[in-house]
């Protein structure tokens, strides 16, 4: 309790210096309930993931994590209220402008690695609450490395052009025809959790393609699957309850979050309220997708080769009939990773292995071992081809070249 009070006092003091507002007024804004709300919203927005140098064991919210984008590495900023290197001198208006317009305190443009195209939908009230929470953090002095971007992207003004093309500063519009729950889910998905940052396909300049909304996207050689529902989406086979458990406990009948999504569940969604997770589920389930194009069928010989590789290497855990062990070993007969148009994730997991996210509810850390040393590019391609062809929703063959590229990428890392 005393730590919280001290943090509140520190925040008040810093705020008073930076803003010239009467401390009493600010103290009222930093009420317990507002800070609590801000903490929850910051968690829902998963700020901590990008703004903590997790790889180097950095302090929470002190920034410095290198975010690899197709254009270069961008380092996240320090969100603690440190005067020199953090948000110490920021006003809540400036903070809101950063979320809403992608403009920094000094008026420069923020790179859209900061997902303000999503946060622009966030309400002023919520942005203020997040700011209030961030003011209570212990100030950490942390200089952020220079971004590693090529010219002309290294010039922040280049972002202005990008924004002109791709950034719509539009607030969140409630759809009166939909339920309150649905609207809450949409707000969580779009304005806070920014699911589309990974799950929506991007154009060549890294902006969301509107017609690809939540239809799956590629990020750092992971393919974030299609998370639309309906009868054709990637979550068509998932019940709303599966989505809630996946996000809240880190397990569902279908799969477990791992690596990138594991981080999201570990840091963010497992801490959200069940009714918010259900709202997300209801919203995602409501989004149908266009029927898939009929997939090319592999030759019988290739199918059988892949099946034999599967039986020898995969069946012990994932079952001979690919039904897996729900909640432990993913069923592969209906996996949206296996049947994604882009097979990157399936290839990557086979080559490099994966570990299920440990959560408060499920502390197990069940892992799949890497097969890169054991299977050739052709063998991996064959087994993925088999799985895609044998699945309920069929997907086309995979070439050894795709595996070779992924292997090269993983070796670089």
């Amino acid at each position, binding site marked *: 309790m005393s730590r919280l009070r001290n943090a509140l006092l520190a925040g008040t003091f810093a705020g008073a210096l930076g803003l010239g507002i009467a401390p009493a007024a600010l103290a009222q804004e930093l009420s317990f309930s507002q800070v609590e709300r801000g903490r929850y919203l910051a968690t829902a927005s998963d700020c901590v993931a990008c703004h903590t140098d997790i790889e180097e064991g950095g302090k929470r919210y002190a920034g410095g994590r290198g975010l690899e984008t197709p254009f270069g590495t961008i380092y996240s900023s320090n969100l603690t209220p440190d005067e020199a290197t953090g948000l110490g001198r920021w006003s809540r208006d400036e903070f809101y402008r950063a979320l809403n317009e992608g403009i920094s305190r000094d008026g420069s443009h923020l790179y859209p690695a900061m997902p303000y195209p999503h946060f622009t939908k966030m309400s002023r009230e919520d942005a203020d609450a997040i700011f209030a929470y961030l003011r209570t953090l212990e100030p950490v002095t942390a200089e952020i490395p220079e971004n590693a971007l090529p010219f002309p992207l290294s010039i922040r003004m280049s972002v202005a052009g990008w924004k002109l093309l791709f950034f719509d500063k539009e607030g969140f519009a409630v759809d009166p025809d939909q339920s309150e729950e649905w609207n809450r889910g949409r707000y969580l998905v779009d304005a806070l959790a920014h699911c589309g940052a990974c799950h929506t396909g991007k154009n060549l300049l890294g902006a969301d393609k509107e017609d690809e909304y939540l239809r799956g996207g590629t990020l750092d050689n992971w393919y974030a699957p299609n998370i639309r529902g309906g009868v054709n989406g990637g979550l068509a086979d998932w019940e709303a309850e599966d989505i809630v458990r996946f996000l809240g406990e880190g397990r569902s009948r279908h799969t477990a979050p791992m690596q990138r999504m594991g981080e999201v569940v570990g840091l963010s969604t497992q801490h959200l309220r069940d009714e918010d997770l259900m709202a997300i589920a209801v919203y995602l389930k409501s989004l149908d997708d266009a029927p898939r194009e009929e997939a090319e069928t592999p030759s019988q010989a290739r199918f059988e080769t892949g099946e034999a590789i599967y039986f020898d*290497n995969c069946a012990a*855990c994932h079952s001979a009939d690919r039904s897996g062990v729900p909640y432990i*070993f993913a069923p592969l007969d209906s996996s949206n990773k296996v049947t994604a148009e882009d097979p990157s994730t399936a290839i990557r997991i086979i080559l490099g292995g994966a570990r299920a996210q440990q959560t408060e509810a*499920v*502390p197990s850390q069940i892992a799949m*071992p890497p097969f890169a040393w054991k299977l050739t590019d052709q063998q991996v391609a064959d087994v993925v081809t088999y799985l895609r062809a044998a699945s309920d929703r069929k997907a086309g063959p995979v070439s050894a070249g795709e595996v070779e590229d992924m292997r090269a990428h993983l070796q670089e890392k």
Partner: protein
Amino acid sequence: MTKHLPRVDVVLVGFGWTGAIFAEKLTAAGLDVLALERGPWRDTPSDFATTFAQDELRYYWRHGMFQEASQDTLTFRNNSAQTALPMRRWGSFLPGNGVGGAGVHWNGQTYRFLPSDFVARSHNEERYGPLPADMTVQDYGVTYEELEPHFDYFEKICGICGQAGNVNGETIEGGNPFEGMRSDQYPNPPMRMTFSQDRFAASARALGLNPFPVPSANMSRAYVNPLGLQMAPCTYCGFCEKHGCGNYSKASPQTTIIPVLMRRPNFGLRTNSEVLSVEKTPDGKHATGVTYVDTSGEVWFQPADIVILCAYPLQNTRLLLLSEIGAPYDPRTGEGVVGKNYCYQVMSSATVFFEDEYTNGFVGAGALGMVVDDYNGDNFDHSGLGFIGGGYIACGTTNARPIESHPVPEDVPRWGSAWKKAVRENFLKTTSVGVHGASMAHRSNYLDLDPTYKDVWGRPLLRMTYDFTLNDRRLTEHLTPVAEEIARGMGGAHVKVNARRGSYDSKPYQTTHNTGGTIMGTDPASSVVNRYGQSWDLPNLFVTGAGLFPQNAGYNPTGTVGALAYWSVDAIINQYLPDPGPLVRP
């Protein structure tokens, strides 16, 4: 130069099953706990993943999971008249090493000892009269009834698969009719049996015996344990013993406790850290911590309020002797306690060779089997037999690992084309009925420090003086024919009896069920620790593991080791912490 580290509440020496159990309960009670493990960190995907877990060369032949004899071994002799020599390669038993200890590479057979096993002296003397003077058999000081809740909890932590025979006094068909009263069923149903078990059960029933499924820590179905940890169904691959399980299907510290423990901020683990000695206050009445050495040769003193020895029994005994805690046992006078009542087990078997039927022994699991308990403990009348105790008789299909397992009939040459032909003919058509015989303590079997041989740190090696006793010989001679009779009733063409005769031989593998040396009991003159595992000499020193057994029963020990660990840690939390001091006044 020894460097001093900051104090912790509890330091654990060794981080296998018992270390994980103590650490989990003590950290949950809010104590700062540090475990020191001599071997490396080990986990499923990195150290025994499905992609290479079945590497028999690496794990069995090259001893991938075991203590390295070049790091530390012991010397062995059959009796005091001989000169002990170092065991330079393991044979008869395989001590574990590394995080998870032998709990990583065990088979998973998880029995409870019988109620009469815990009162072996008083029970047998009451029924049969005084035991021979040299049989140093003792009561545990703790009863089955006291341990029952802890057996139950350990079974739930492990997800043991079995068929209860006695729940709250109600006899249940298909279970073990001789077992002590259970408060609950097993958490999971028995494993699926194979051809061999079906034949064994039919033959045993025809002889009026009571077959039941071996209680198994290999999962018959998916399971979530009380700590929220997930286990997957066993695939019956037959690589349990000597191997880690890559499928999360075998209960081990890694699958059932460690992932929860590693998240707790009040738990610490230092691997590759070998404890050299337990340190004491100048008056010798309290432990102050332990001294350990890391891989760089740096020596550290780790102070702690409570020291708990969780290493293998042989290692715990040696550590007490090296630390000069407790009086070393002297077989000439029968006085002293540390190293006393070292026991083993007496194993025999009958192999059945079928002609036209397939046993397919490669479809196996470490604890896949049917078993009869009619000849175990005091489940049968020993009047006039000249021995006490017994053993279970079981038909397990644990494996057909090809380097290790290629049984051939007796008349086949040991090598050459005739041998190869016989291996080919019999590989899929054999099974075995084994006798798992108890070993009763004897005055002449004990552990002490070797006068000649030293380890890499210059400390004397442990010396084992052991031979099968008259009791052991009579026991195995009585039980092996029963196994043979069951085997002959299984419909095979030929039965080969592998009797245990002659002196104990430390070379061929028999079992890693070494017990005693740090025995528990009711009297400081005859035991190292009291009924809670607390040292009679240093009240803040506890010892756990099978070294507590005053004599060995006719079962695999892990179930009882687990129950004793939970019993002991419960006493620490609920009795010792509120009022530190001796929990039993002699």
